[in-house]
């Protein structure tokens, strides 16, 4: 039986792994990918120690740090169920089963989908959930960004440098997100912000050719070849059984990162921690590991 299994390898999971390695715990990391949402971020200017670093670069540094302790990382493994059985925790994945004294769930969040006609058909055929990845393919083309928060602004800041014209389709009366980013977007020459607007369909033939929107009750069709969906995130928490969650599906934790089930800890964006930031997720990961270390030592 392991002391600890860490689920997820974003800032929270990786930081937890560094602490677990330094505490010489018997542990492993089980994850779908490395970096989580940080890998998909564009420019990061608020992670202490770096005035400027890109998402992929910061992830590379995180990963190097994690692997410098020869940590066992199972990448590309999907967790199906986490449950408590007697005194130990069972972790079932699509490839294996693990038993541990404790577990840290740091599985983060994933993009929410639009749920409109055309979304499934044109996924990867003009519809993208990652401006950082697919943005460069839309150079000199018209694109629409759906959303009005920080991730939409981040996508906009990347796409205004690449695309011909950028529409921002925002369902609120004005843009949200960080003021600095908002000003940069509002100042760009090739941006049109459409507030109080919802996408009702994505249209095309082989690839996307337009989006249908509803602005204040009026239907409009915008001719675009790219649609970037940035309407928020949902927590990857459905595989955890018996753990208390809030109405958004986030795992409830106390200040020691304990859930309602002894031995099951959680950290980062998958939890109800008030703010979702890379630096916060990293800090939460370290806290969760120190709590799990104490728990495992006593059990």
């Amino acid at each position, binding site marked *: 039986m392991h002391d600890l299994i860490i689920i997820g390898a974003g800032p929270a999971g990786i930081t937890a792994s560094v602490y677990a390695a330094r505490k010489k715990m018997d542990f492993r990391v089980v994850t779908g990918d490395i970096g989580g949402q940080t890998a998909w971020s564009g420019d990061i200017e608020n992670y202490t120690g770096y005035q400027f670093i890109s998402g992929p670069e910061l*992830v590379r540094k995180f990963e190097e740090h994690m692997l410098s302790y020869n940590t066992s990382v199972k990448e590309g493994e999907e967790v199906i169920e986490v449950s408590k059985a007697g005194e130990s925790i069972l972790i079932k994945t699509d490839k294996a089963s693990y038993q541990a004294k404790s577990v840290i769930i740091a599985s983060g969040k994933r993009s929410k989908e639009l749920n409109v006609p055309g979304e499934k058909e044109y996924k990867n055929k003009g519809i993208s959930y990652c401006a950082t990845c697919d943005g*460069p*393919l839309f150079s000199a083309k018209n694109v629409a960004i759906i959303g009005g928060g920080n991730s939409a602004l981040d996508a906009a800041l990347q796409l205004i440098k690449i695309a011909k014209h950028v529409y921002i389709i925002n369902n609120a009366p004005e843009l949200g997100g960080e003021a600095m980013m908002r000003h940069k977007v509002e100042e760009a020459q090739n941006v049109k912000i459409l507030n109080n607007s919802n996408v009702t369909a994505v249209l095309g033939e*082989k690839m996307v050719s337009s989006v249908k929107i509803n602005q204040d009750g009026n239907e409009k069709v915008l001719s675009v070849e790219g649609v970037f969906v940035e309407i928020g995130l949902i927590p990857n928490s459905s595989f955890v059984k018996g753990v208390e969650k809030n109405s958004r599906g986030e795992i409830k934790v106390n200040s020691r990162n304990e859930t309602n089930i002894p031995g099951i800890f959680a950290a980062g964006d998958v939890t109800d921690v008030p703010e979702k930031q890379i630096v916060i997720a990293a800090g939460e990961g370290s806290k969760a590991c120190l709590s799990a270390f104490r728990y495992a030592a006593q059990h």
Partner: protein
Amino acid sequence: MAKNVKVYSTPTCPWCIRVKQFLKDNNIAFEDYDVGSDRLKADEMVKKSGQMAVPVLDIEGEIVVGFDREKIKQLLGI
């Protein structure tokens, strides 16, 4: 004999970085096309794969979309 491997990618996409690292770790030589700056190669990628997400791999004419580790291993025989 070494297989003919082409990678269509963008400089910023995390899965592109990982797939290229995976090929390097396995000593597989490949041609890397930046479809963000090379319009012709971008069109070629869309034609070959029928979609617009990166990365796309062309391994001896077999097309792989995304970092599908098992499929890539199988096609490369590693």
